[in-house]
């Protein structure tokens, strides 16, 4: 296959167009703008590895490598900002390759080689190879989702399970569709890892590092419910429960309302675009098959033709059409891997984004609930004032203090997740624009190549047609 998976598309550092983020990114050249606002040193649950800076951009800042041998967990929060800006030297390459079938029959599974090449110091070596199976990837995603989604991070979803596809592979069908299935999965797993490490917080997560580096990985069990879709389904169920609340969330921030609507629209439109591209892939494959079929028929016609020169020309036409059918098939792979799969990834990512907005609503609901509870406790205490039960009164006062704390926590959590989401959405939108621009160019170039070959083949045939005498 002569098509490259879009890994390079996601990794190349390129100039970013003026940002279209929320109100905080006024000055795209000031990398520190967001960073200075986001730091909140007294927030206890703030993980030591929050992402702050915008995506890699060509900036005048001299790239400074992360200082060697610094243990991720010992870093104090403000040190992280400096290291974040240096992601313009995003120096990590991951490839998923060499699918191998292990075992036989229905217990068989595929194992993939995951190779990480990097000069980042958080890794213990600059090149490491490990073997992973599909459920390992799902396990990684489920861990990351459970850790970060409730904080408003957009965690890239793992590829979908496919019972049909895998069964074919397990029972040993060596046909083209099994081969294509494995390649499709391999490519999807690679994109998944690249997206995951592109996220500044996830890159440093110990589970990610373990996944990439450690030769033995504890088997991820019960991944039935833990596929990307599975987790998102769980999350969205919770969101539905939230939505059914009688108290509608008072959206004080127009940005969230606007963005949520935008993502709803984008979801619909992307799915439509994806469907059209899938149709293109299908029809292009058909074109290839029909061209091959015509080539055979033209060859037969040439054999049957009793005029020598015409017979020769028809045979040559058959050869040209055979080459062209191969061309169409290659183009259909480009259609698929460059555009269709990328769109599929983004449709899933948008679901993750919507999930994150719902997490915020959950956080708001929790905060509101705490306030309601606090109110109740206060009322209870007031009543007890007149009842003259000193020990109960003490308990009530303690409970008030407890719930006051919870209300404060709830408010902080809500504000934190709101901040995180703003940042995450900004990053997401920049990445999306970048990915699309790069991929569309690659795709158009693939079309150019096809046309060039067509010209070559037909120009070679023309004299043959003219030679008919």
């Amino acid at each position, binding site marked *: 296959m002569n098509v490259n998976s879009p890994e390079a598309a996601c990794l190349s550092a390129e100039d970013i167009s*003026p940002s279209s983020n929320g109100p905080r990114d006024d000055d795209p050249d000031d990398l520190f703008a967001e960073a200075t606002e986001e730091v909140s040193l007294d927030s206890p649950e703030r993980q030591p590895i929050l992402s702050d800076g915008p995506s890699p951009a060509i900036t005048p800042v001299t790239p400074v490598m992360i200082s060697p041998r610094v243990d991720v967990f010992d870093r104090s929060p403000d040190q992280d900002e400096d290291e974040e800006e240096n992601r313009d030297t995003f120096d990590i390459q991951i490839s998923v390759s060499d699918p191998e079938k292990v075992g036989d029959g229905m217990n068989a599974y595929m194992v993939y080689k995951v190779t990480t090449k990097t000069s980042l110091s958080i890794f213990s070596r600059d090149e490491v190879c490990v073997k992973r199976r599909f459920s390992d990837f799902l396990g990684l995603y489920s861990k990351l989702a459970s850790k970060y989604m409730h904080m408003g991070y957009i965690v890239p979803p793992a590829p979908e399970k496919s019972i049909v596809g895998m069964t074919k592979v397990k029972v040993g069908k060596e046909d083209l569709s099994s081969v294509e299935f494995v390649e499709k999965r391999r490519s999807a797993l690679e994109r998944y890892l690249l997206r995951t490490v592109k996220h500044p917080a996830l890159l440093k997560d110990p589970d990610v590092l373990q996944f990439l580096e450690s030769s033995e990985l504890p088997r991820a069990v019960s991944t039935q419910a833990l596929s990307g879709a599975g987790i998102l389904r769980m999350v969205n169920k919770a969101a539905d429960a939230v939505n059914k609340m009688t108290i509608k969330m008072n959206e004080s921030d127009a940005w969230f309302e606007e963005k949520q609507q935008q993502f709803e629209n984008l979801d619909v439109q992307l799915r439509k675009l994806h469907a059209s591209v899938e149709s*293109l892939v299908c029809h292009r494959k058909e074109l290839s098959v029909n061209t091959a079929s*015509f080539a055979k028929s033209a060859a037969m016609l040439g054999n*049957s033709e*009793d005029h020598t020169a015409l017979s020769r*020309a028809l045979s040559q036409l058959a050869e040209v059409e055979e080459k062209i059918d191969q061309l169409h098939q290659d183009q259909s792979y480009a259609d698929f891997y460059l555009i269709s799969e990328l769109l599929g990834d983004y449709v899933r990512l948008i679901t993750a984004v919507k999930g994150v907005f719902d997490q915020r609503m959950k956080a708001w609901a929790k905060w509101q609930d705490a306030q309601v509870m606090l109110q109740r406790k206060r009322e209870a205490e007031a009543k007890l004032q007149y009842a003259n039960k000193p020990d109960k009164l003490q308990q009530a006062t303690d409970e008030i203090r407890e719930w006051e704390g919870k209300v404060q926590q709830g408010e902080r959590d809500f504000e934190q997740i709101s901040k995180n989401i703003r940042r995450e959405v900004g990053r997401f939108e920049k990445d999306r624009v970048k990915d699309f621009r790069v991929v569309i160019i690659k795709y158009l170039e693939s079309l150019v190549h096809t046309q060039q070959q067509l010209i070559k083949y037909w120009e070679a045939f*023309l004299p043959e047609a003219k030679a008919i005498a």
Partner: protein
Amino acid sequence: MVRSVSVDLNNDASLVIDIPDALCERDKVKFTIHIKTTLSSFQKSEFSVPRQHEDFIWLHDTIVETEEYAGLIIPPAPPKPDFEGPREKMHKLGEGESSMTKEEYAKMKQELEAEYLAVFKKTVQVHEVFLQRLSSHPMFRKDRNFQIFLEYDQDLTVRRKNAKEMFGGFFKNMVKSADEVLISGVKEVDEFFEQEKIFLLDYSSKIKDATAKAEKMTRSHKNVADDYNHISGAMNSIAADNNTAFKKHLEKCAEVFEKLRKLEDRVASDQELKLTELLRYYTRDIQAAKDLLYRRARALADYENSNKTLDKARLKGKDIAQAEENQKQCLRKFDKLSESGKKELTSFKARRVVAFRKNLIEMTELEIKHAKNSMSLLQGSIEILNSN
């Protein structure tokens, strides 16, 4: 109008026919036949006459019925104009007008017009070729009905009805599609016809198959063009919701896909016109050649039967003169068919080779042209998108 399938048919300036125009009214297509002639058998030297598809069929049928032409390859009748596709689209356009944006409506209208044009070109070409085959043939061009077809300045409908009444009953007898069993069963003494028989039977099935495969291939091209159309529309929807430079980028991409669609459509319709139509036409022409073989085989069978009858008559001593006369006639007919058949089949091969050559060259040149246009479109777009 592009005359592709026949190339040498208008060499003779004494009778030049073309169809410069056609009108589509509801179910009927009216072709404008334009004639230029130096022949004295015609009243005027240059004139035009409107004709319907049914008139062509009438002319074809009367020629098939004519005993005199039994030894000739009868030019295949043009197929009925098929505007079903564009008509369906027009219907959809009318129904959906209220629910479409102005741009969508304009775009669909444009597509519709392109489709109409493609069907038009096809049907005009095939009707034109039919007439040109007749005008360029030494015997057909003198046919009385052909002249009526060209010159009669009124509606032919009445004449057509009369003809049906005349021929109605005999129709089925005379016009029989080549009976392959009869043809292959005949014991052939003539090497030329033996070769032709083998060739035509085999070639006939191969060219039918090639036609079907070419049709599928063209259909796939059209589907790809359709997909480009939908992709373009979807990109425009996404662009509408975006602001800033990305919006322009997306709009530019949508534009590229729209242009790609047009090019892919052109590739599909040119391929159809040059390749599929060529194969379709010669499938029909091969059938006409087979029909000739059939008629000759029938004549041979008749001759053999007449021999048997003569032998019987001689044995019985009755009706000998009649049987002898019959046998002479059958032999005459058979010889005539063989002689003219040989000429016809030889010139058929020459005609076929010339037509294939011309169409393959034109198709190839068009493929190259479209590929070059696509390439420059794509390269230009890549430059613009990169510079953004």
